[in-house]
């Protein structure tokens, strides 16, 4: 049997710098697994593999100034498949967060601004909100089996806090009642807050961590003030 002669001391392992675990973009092997699995690859130049390369080469501006970060749904299929575990969706979200706020496309940042100012992404005053939900609740109370149904608003000591997706309050009122029916028959002790009831957090989409924290903080505040231990968050 051939003898393996040690000609060099084993130092590489010690000398090579360890990669920072929170930014492992440079671990990318450019295999293209991410790109092959992404339904958006090839659409208007979108390609997750190329986005990782852009970031790796420090060409952040090209990504930030393009519309690519806004075409991605941040679904995470790319990183689920990535053999090196690179958080590709986080690159996209970080790029979104670096876009000047007035250049954030569509309703995303406008919704965040309205939400911060008014407590919901529609900018709906509390009395209008309560009117809408009580109106839909009164309609449900006319249905057999739900005659004593009432919407508990700002109820202290309830078991469950229920926030709402703004679209149900806006144009899709008919979809408000599904959970209410379930709560009623389960005899749940639940409540909806009259202010800061927004159940979506568009800071997640706009890359705005500060806004995200504010929205979450409001819900925590409700739970503390109303002394509620459980939350039913729609998203």
């Amino acid at each position, binding site marked *: 049997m051939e003898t393996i002669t040690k000609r060099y001391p084993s130092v590489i392992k010690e000398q090579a710098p360890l990669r920072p675990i929170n930014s492992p973009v440079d671990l990318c092997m450019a295999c293209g697994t991410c790109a092959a699995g992404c339904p958006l690859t090839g659409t208007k130049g979108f390609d997750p593999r190329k986005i990782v390369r852009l970031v790796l080469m420090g060409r952040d501006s090209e990504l930030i100034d393009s519309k690519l970060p806004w075409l991605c749904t941040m679904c995470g299929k790319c990183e689920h498949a990535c053999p090196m575990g690179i958080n590709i969706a986080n690159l996209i979200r970080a790029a979104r967060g670096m876009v000047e706020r007035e250049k954030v496309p569509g309703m995303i940042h406008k919704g965040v601004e309205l939400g911060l100012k008014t407590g919901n992404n529609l900018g709906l005053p509390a009395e209008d909100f309560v009117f809408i939900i009580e109106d839909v609740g009164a309609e449900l109370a006319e249905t057999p089996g739900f005659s004593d149904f009432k919407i508990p608003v700002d109820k202290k000591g309830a078991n469950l806090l229920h926030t709402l997706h703004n679209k149900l309050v806006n144009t899709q009122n008919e979809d408000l009642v599904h959970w209410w029916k*379930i709560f009623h028959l389960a005899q749940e002790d639940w409540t909806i807050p009259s202010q800061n009831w927004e159940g*979506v957090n568009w800071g997640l989409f706009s890359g705005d961590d500060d806004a995200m924290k504010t929205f979450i903080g409001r819900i925590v505040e409700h739970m503390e003030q109303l002394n509620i231990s459980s939350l039913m968050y729609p998203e």
Partner: protein
Amino acid sequence: MFDLLVDYIRSGRIRLDKTKITHRVAYHDPCNYGRKSQELFGHGYYEEPRWILDQCISDWVDLFPAGGNQYCCGGGGGTLLTPYRDERIHYARRKMEQIKRTGAKMLVVPCHSCHGQIKAVAETYGMPDLRVKYLWEVVADILIID
């Protein structure tokens, strides 16, 4: 949300009529309840919705691929709020192929974004009659009222 429904059903606080929905139904895993939840909280909600569907519907089927390999509907990440409508509709083609292959008349989703996106693109992909329901809407529809 899943845990709450499982608790209500398992404890008998609500009772369901499984004979009400007779046609085929398909289920779609939203990215945030699956992959994202797995990544951030160490638990992807794959089993719970399927257990709930078992209590509600006799003929429900999975899309393929499902679970962690599920295709995104194309409406996530705020894309429903941007002006890039054509790209968003194009994105949905894989999802709509998956649904079409099952022959289901109804798609059940537990996510508002998926719900909005699939309803908005169904006609473009030749499925104008596809019904899209929230998981909790299915539960509410078949509640047994004494």
